[in-house]
């Protein structure tokens, strides 16, 4: 998915960061994003997402490497001259100012005339549907309202790049979903570039053009949501994004698009080689729960089959969730749609399960 670096708007070049001089919090970060893209940094706690954002915003300096904005290195530009809008995790609305004053702040420091300031504030407030709250203090607003004001404040001075650090972390599920929708709509409508940090994978998948999965100071995979889900490149990503079944084994045979893996209980399966290099290597095979079938009528001709024992069958309305023992793994989950012809299982039953070799990815162990 690498885009030509010519139209890269933001570019991290071999960036490293250490706080204490002993451990690298960010190790060799390379990232390019074009104008107008909505990029999400996703990753477990402590993986260095905020640090990257802070380096971009100018509150931390990179220990090594370059950060380019529109082709210009910003390492020596102070934060207030970078023109980057930012939404903080705790919103950071100034408590001693009203909503309108908060929004006026970035305009005032840019010495924008009063009349223009007012129209911009009104427009920004209307954009987040908070037009009637101009006179309130932040403490008189609900969490979601504060969040919208923070968003409006980050957008009111029309930055081209907006950074958001877990802006929805404090909201309840319903409000969060609504806000996710609103933020993406706004970003697309305004055509701004957004770098968004979250550790909620659903949020990442639903909102972004591309997602950068962080772990251990590195980008593990940078891809669009669908390929991230369907084509994870390593077992961390496979495990981190969505639900995933893994089976450990050893590569027995390897060709360009077929690998034969011997699972630890001895059975052999065919897989798509993704992150295996040579025969004899340990591997972790990843299969998504919804790609596994047990209904004989539905199992594809080319499908690979294994026997399994049903440990648990959970009726969830729209789907059935079944926990199986497969090749010594007690946590093998399959999800099946509650179709009229779907067969229901009972615990203890022995069944045949099957999947297509292309859905079964041999990744690093």
């Amino acid at each position: 998915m690498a885009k030509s670096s010519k139209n890269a708007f933001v570019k991290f070049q071999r960036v490293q960061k250490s706080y204490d001089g002993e451990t690298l919090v960010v190790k060799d970060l390379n990232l390019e994003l074009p104008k107008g893209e909505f990029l999400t940094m996703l990753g477990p706690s402590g993986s260095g997402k905020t640090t990257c954002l802070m380096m971009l915003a100018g509150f931390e300096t990179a220990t090594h490497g370059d950060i380019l904005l529109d082709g210009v290195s910003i390492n020596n530009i102070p934060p207030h001259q970078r023109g980057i809008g930012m939404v903080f995790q705790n919103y950071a609305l100034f408590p001693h100012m009203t909503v309108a004053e908060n929004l006026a702040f970035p305009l005032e420091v840019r010495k924008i005339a009063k009349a223009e300031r007012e129209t911009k504030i009104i427009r920004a407030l209307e954009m987040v549907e908070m037009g009637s709250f101009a006179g309130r203090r932040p403490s008189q607003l609900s969490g979601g309202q504060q969040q919208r004001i923070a968003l409006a404040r980050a957008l009111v001075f029309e930055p081209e790049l907006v950074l958001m650090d877990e802006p929805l972390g404090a909201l309840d599920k319903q409000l969060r979903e609504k806000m996710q929708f609103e933020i993406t709509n706004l970003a697309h409508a305004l055509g701004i570039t957004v770098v968004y940090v979250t550790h909620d994978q659903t949020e990442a998948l639903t909102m972004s053009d591309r997602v950068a999965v962080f772990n251990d100071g590195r980008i593990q995979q940078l891809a669009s949501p669908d390929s991230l889900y369907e084509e994870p490149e390593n077992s961390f990503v496979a495990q981190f994004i969505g639900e995933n079944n893994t089976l450990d084994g050893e590569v027995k045979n390897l060709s360009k698009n077929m690998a034969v893996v011997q699972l630890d209980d001895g059975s052999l399966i065919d897989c798509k080689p993704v992150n295996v290099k040579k025969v004899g290597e340990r591997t972790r095979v990843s299969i998504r729960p919804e790609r596994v079938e047990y209904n004989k009528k539905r199992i594809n001709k080319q499908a690979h089959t294994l026997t399994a024992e049903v440990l648990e069958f959970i009726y969830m309305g729209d789907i059935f969730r079944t926990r199986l023992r497969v090749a010594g793994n007690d946590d093998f989950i399959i999800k099946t749609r509650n179709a009229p012809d779907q067969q229901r299982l009972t615990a203890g039953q022995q069944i045949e399960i099957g999947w297509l070799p292309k859905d079964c990815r041999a990744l690093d162990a």
Partner: protein
Amino acid sequence: MSIQTSNQPLLAADGRPLKQSLSRALRRQKLRALALVAPLLVFVMLTFVLPICNMLFRSVENDIVSNIMPYTVNALESWTAEPDTLPDEAIFKAAFYDLSVAAKAKEHTKLGTRLNYEQTGISSTFRKSGRALSKSGKALAKEFDALDPRWNKAETFFELFTTDEADRQASDQNILDRQLFRLNQLKGQAYDPLPNFELAREKTAALPLTAREYGYWALFTSLEKNKDFTKGKVTEALYVALTDDLQNPQNKAYIDRLTGPSAELVKTAAAYFETQPNLNYAKLMKDVNKNWAEPVVWETIKLHSSRYTNGYFLNAVDMRKTADGPAVQPESKQILLILFQRTVKMSLIITVSCILLGYPVAWLLANLPMRTSNLLMILVLLPFWTSLLVRTSAWKVMLQQQGVINEVLVWLGLVATDNRLEIINNQFGTIIAMTHILLPFMILPMYSVMQTIPASYVRAAKSLGATNWTAFWRVYFPQSVPGIGAGSILVFILAIGYYITPEIVGGTEGVFISNRIAYHISSSLNWGLAAALGAILLTVVLVLYWAYDKIVGIDNVKLG
């Protein structure tokens, strides 16, 4: 479970109304809380609140005049001071006995000191009168002695006035009760009455003034001096009283009616003194001290005779009580208002200096990494571990003319040896030393407020385009104002009542009102004025506190 209707009280599990059980439970909690604070409460009440109330009470209390000169105050009540008119004979008479009694009890100088606060020089009149008061009595005593040597003995008086055992009904207990009260007021004591000592009614009717003074003297001698009043001599003033009684035409009929062993003695003396010129108390007092012929002395006594006075408060604001109401003190005696102004002004300067010096330190404390900030905190707290006196004395060493700072400046050639800086024993010295001493009280509240300001606010401001200065001034500073407020109120209130430091490094120009209070407490002993000054200081602080609460809101003050 039944559904409760809204006007039925809710019941707790044991069937009692819920409200009642709740208030019972709360009451128990409150009692326990009270028991926990009770020791401190009692301690504070006894050692802090009560002494302060007592002290404040002294600022209006003024019973010394009426306690020491009860008859004079009574007599002066109907007298109006007019320029250049002396009081009448009755007043001089009352004053003579009051002062004689006070002189014997050595209380007259106290009254002199008290009145001297109001009228400079009056204390010497009282002091000098003490000795001279007995002169006239001595002269009369000689005349009585010439008439009959028995008059010379206290025994004679005892026999003259007391009743027989059998004749109790005829005794006049009233006089003795009043004289015991007079003695108690004078000495501030509560003596028990003398047993088996009563005055015969027929004698007190014949010689009322002598009986009164004798009764007092007997009580005084026996209770206060612990001597036998039936032996030796009586006090000289009694002879004056006796002469007065014997010459008083109103007593004549009663004297003629007297019977018993000493009746002849009295009648002979009465016959003799009828031929003598009448007693003149005005002249008598003038002989004691010529100042008693000055109307102003009497005016002063009358003016300050009430039991409660606003005089101390008037004095505290450079005014004084006069017969025509409050008046401004003469220019030469105006000092307190200047001191009040200076105290407030310098406290403000000290507070502002503390803010200016303390703010950056507090900011560093709140924003440095933990390890470094802990070290810095120790440096801030270090002064607390050193005695206040040591710190202040250290400033003395630093600032004096031959002190460290001057020596260094001279050594550097910045200041000529004969032109050393005067930075101590003036306001400058006080401001420097007190700023240093009070600085921690400014830093700590500011620090605790700043600690609660998340770094993300300043970051947000910068990301919105604010320069470092704008981000600080528009975003950080307003949020640190409660800390400044808390520190300022603390420092200002401490500064306004500070004593030791101005005393040591302030010289005469750099002293505060509290130094004046201390002076009146320990040197001039004018406790009333000290109390009034203290009360004003307390009021000023409370008013400031109230104003601060109105403007900033005391809930915004964070001390930790």
